[in-house]
């Protein structure tokens, strides 16, 4: 490139409309007088137009199923979301209460099909002493296991959890040792739980 021509990056910025007014005017003046740069800008714009007009390429239908089959065959690496030490530290002010109530809530998210959408979701809280885990197989749908449903436990008194979710407009009840929530979207439940006052609910991953 001969001396005096603007750089590629300047010409690109000009084509993209990213230059401030005075820079832009100076470049436009050069381009009006310089066929080489004028052509370069024309090409950059033409290349952009051609790319943006490129037709969409549709994925083959069986791809989605192939991906799911891969997921079936490979366990994800598990990651403890919050380390136990950190959990204890965060919950320190509540430790006594928790020890007395001895509550562990577990949230199960399941769906009716893998493509997502509204399904019956339940957030469950168990009141087992000593925080015993109860994975009662009341989760009727046999497909849940096939879907690789995750089971997570959150610490907190079920009644409080239920009351909180209710206050957020969700249909939550304490049923036996659990909190059952009916909601259209598990994300919404998870979001509400995460936003619960008194600190975020700590989630511990358990093996299924």
């Amino acid at each position: 490139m001969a001396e005096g021509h603007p750089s590629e990056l300047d010409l690109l910025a000009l084509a993209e409309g990213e230059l401030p007014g005075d820079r832009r005017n100076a470049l436009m003046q050069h381009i009006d007088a310089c066929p080489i740069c004028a052509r370069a800008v024309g090409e950059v714009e033409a290349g952009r137009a051609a790319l943006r007009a490129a037709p969409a390429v549709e994925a083959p239908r069986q791809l989605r199923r192939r991906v799911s089959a891969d997921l079936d065959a490979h366990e994800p690496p598990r990651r403890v979301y919050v380390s136990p030490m950190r959990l204890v530290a965060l919950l320190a002010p509540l430790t006594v209460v928790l020890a007395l109530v001895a509550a562990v809530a577990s949230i199960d998210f399941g769906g009716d099909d893998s493509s997502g959408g509204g399904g019956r979701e339940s957030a469950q809280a168990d009141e087992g002493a000593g925080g015993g885990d109860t994975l009662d197989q009341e989760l009727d749908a046999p497909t849940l296991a096939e879907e690789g449903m995750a089971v997570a436990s959150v610490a907190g008194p079920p009644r409080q959890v239920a009351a909180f979710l209710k206050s957020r407009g969700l249909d939550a009840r304490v049923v036996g040792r659990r909190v059952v929530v009916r909601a259209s979207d598990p994300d919404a439940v998870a979001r509400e739980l995460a936003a619960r006052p008194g600190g975020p609910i700590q989630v511990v991953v358990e093996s299924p």
Partner: protein
Amino acid sequence: MAARDPDGDLVRRAQRGDRLAFERLVDRHQARLFTLAARTLGSRDEAADAVQDAFLRAWRRLDSFRGDALFSTWLYRICVNAAHDQRTRRSAEPAELEDVAPDPRDRFAESRLSDEIQTALDALDETQREVVVLYDILGCSYAEIAEVTGAAEGTVKSRLFRGRTELARRLGTAGARGESNT
């Protein structure tokens, strides 16, 4: 920490082993990933293999995603690498890439993309092709592309400039008939 990631909630759930959450991420990103792979590789079959491979890699390495970049950026990077590996495999076993006169009514059976833009894209250098596809077809920013490709932003811009220019010349548009070679 990147600005709020629209995939953040699903990613966190998937990282706890929630398969359903990951399936939703697949549903969200499959079409764009496929476009990225198909336009980079120029073949539907190879693109499907690359995308399948990319999602599996993402699933298995999900714990290594730290949220420093957007999840979509992380996914694009994995996909670009998977497509690159696919391409390397192709050249390892040289098959003739000649046109097979496909039945024009059987769009899905025809694996090779043969529209004009693809023919021009195929002629680009791989690094330029990645950048123009990411910027102009997927709408990524310079910063995202820098993350995806591991190149500096200046390099990304230069590749965009040259890739677009080269495309225009091959397509013969905008009076882009210049003889001057770069």
